[in-house]
């Protein structure tokens, strides 16, 4: 049922654009601000184990990149954080996934509320078949925000943050979200998530279906969003992980085809001095 609860004022934190790449130091300095974590998480599809025993912590306002070969369970793990795995018949998750210290896997957790706090951007842009404005207003409207002025404001702020405003402001209400280019569609999807004011944004290979210019724009955007949001991104593109993330987690597939975490650390270190031989082989292109 549509909720009658009042919609919380959108808290859009100011963005300070920094180009700091010293992820390593920041990682060390902020270990107390754990936003998300997994504790010995295993994910099964029916009897088949897809991800085994992953324990990770993700700092607030940082970007964690999940890299690894296909089938190593990165996307599956990502979908745990907002429980999208619930939608897959036969999928089950063992272990604890916490958001601000609360286990989101508990049966009494509201999945709807969780997904409002943990937004998601998909691999293929999936704008709704409605106007650009309605696409962005979709989430807030479902939460009972019907005030025209506030919606106008929220749509504008979200589109600005997603670096799309200037390109679409003239036909917000006339143009369908489907009429945009692929890169614009993906930024629209990011704006749509931002409009619901999440704390965490999950991105499942958000640029893999885009051309290099659009990819670059998305990456710049990620660096900006990092100032206000916690971001977890799955990517096949190692340069992308190196460019945008603060922390990188490397996954691979065991002999029984179950994905597992090989190592995690500050992006700078993972790409220069990995601890594990498997990581080194992967990032240097000898494998995967």
């Amino acid at each position, binding site marked *: 049922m549509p909720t009658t609860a009042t919609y919380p004022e959108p808290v859009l934190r100011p963005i300070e654009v920094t180009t700091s790449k010293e992820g390593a130091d920041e990682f060390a300095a902020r270990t107390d601000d754990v936003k998300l974590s997994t504790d010995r998480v295993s994910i099964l599809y029916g009897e088949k184990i897809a991800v085994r025993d992953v324990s990770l912590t993700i700092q607030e306002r940082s970007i964690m990149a999940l890299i690894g070969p296909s089938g190593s369970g990165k996307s599956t793990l990502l979908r745990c954080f907002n429980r999208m795995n619930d939608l897959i018949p036969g999928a089950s998750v063992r272990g604890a996934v916490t958001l601000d210290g609360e286990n989101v896997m508990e049966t009494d957790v509201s999945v709807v509320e969780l997904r409002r706090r943990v937004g998601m951007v*998909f691999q293929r842009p999936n704008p709704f078949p409605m106007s650009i404005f309605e696409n962005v207003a*979709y989430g807030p409207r479902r939460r009972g925000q019907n005030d025209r002025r506030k919606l106008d404001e929220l749509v504008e702020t979200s589109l600005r943050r997603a670096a799309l405003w200037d390109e679409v402001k003239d036909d917000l209400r006339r143009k369908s979200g489907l009429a945009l280019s692929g890169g614009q569609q993906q930024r629209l999807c990011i704006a749509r998530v931002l409009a619901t004011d999440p704390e965490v944004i999950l991105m499942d290979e958000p640029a893999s279906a885009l051309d290099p210019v659009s990819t670059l724009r998305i990456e710049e955007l990620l660096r900006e969003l990092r100032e206000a949001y916690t971001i977890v991104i799955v990517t096949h593109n190692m340069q992308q992980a190196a460019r945008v993330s603060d922390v990188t987690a490397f996954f691979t597939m065991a002999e029984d085809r179950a994905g597992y975490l090989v190592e995690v650390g500050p992006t700078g270190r993972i790409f220069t001095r990995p601890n594990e031989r498997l990581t080194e082989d992967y990032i240097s292109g000898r494998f995967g």
Partner: protein
Amino acid sequence: MAQMTTANRLTGLRARPGLLERIDVPRRVVFLAAVSMIAIVALLMAFIAWQGIQLFVKDGVSVGEIFSPTWNPLANAGPEFGLLPFIAATVCVTAVALLISTPLSVGLALFLSEVAPNWAKAVVQPSLEIFVGIPSVVWGWLGITVLVPFLADTFSGPIVISLPIAGPVFSMPGFLTGFSWMAGSLVLSIMVLPTITSVSYDAFRAVPQELRTGSLALGTTRWQMIRHLLLPSALSGVLTAVVLGMTRAAGEALAVQMVIGNSPTMPAAITQPLTTLTSQITLDMGNTVFGEPWQDALWTMSLVLLIISITSVVLVRLINKRRLAS
């Protein structure tokens, strides 16, 4: 000879194609199928149109007269060919059938596409196919033996709706025999249910899965997703389904004729017997002689039916054109 020059190879390709290749038999066969299909439809329409205008051309009935409410084709002193009762009845019976059937069918389609576990789909889908396969005479027979007596027994007295202070605000006569507008609409609503259900089911399935997950990932409930994303996205498909159901309902003759009571009167109460264009044609055609005004009037009724179905085809086209444009 082993050394073939380039020029030689080219002439090899340019060799005259064989007879079969030149005539291209498969292409001609399918072309012929398409042409005969178009020809059949065109001839059919021309024939019905020609027969349908005889009432005006040969029998001297004016176009205005067919919109009179009186049907009396056998009167010695000036027979009357008012088709309005049939047209009105067709519209009314179809409308009520759709009012009953649309919410049920769309609900069922939503259930099948969004909610149903696999075992339920495995049961419901074949059941719908069986529904389609049941001949209309069986539905009519069921209507006569079950529905009509039920209506006559249960609501035989006048139906009155009273408010505490205002008193009776609505009243209509009860079902006398049970043969009625209501019986016709109920039977039709069951008969069009599979059509509307399967076409709207396809419309819902055509909405990409990514949109559903996109909506759920934004923290909407499943119901919000259905109400605000799925239904608007599939709207043109659902409208197409309703129009197709409408065509089927307006065109159904036998089952309706069996339960509607066959009384050429203007519709006023849902409890009264009526007769539709199709049911009147089935009822009368055996009693008429070729070329007499009475039969010409039946042809005019067929023409009206044809116009209704062409209109709905055009309607479906327009709806789908809009869908593609948006």
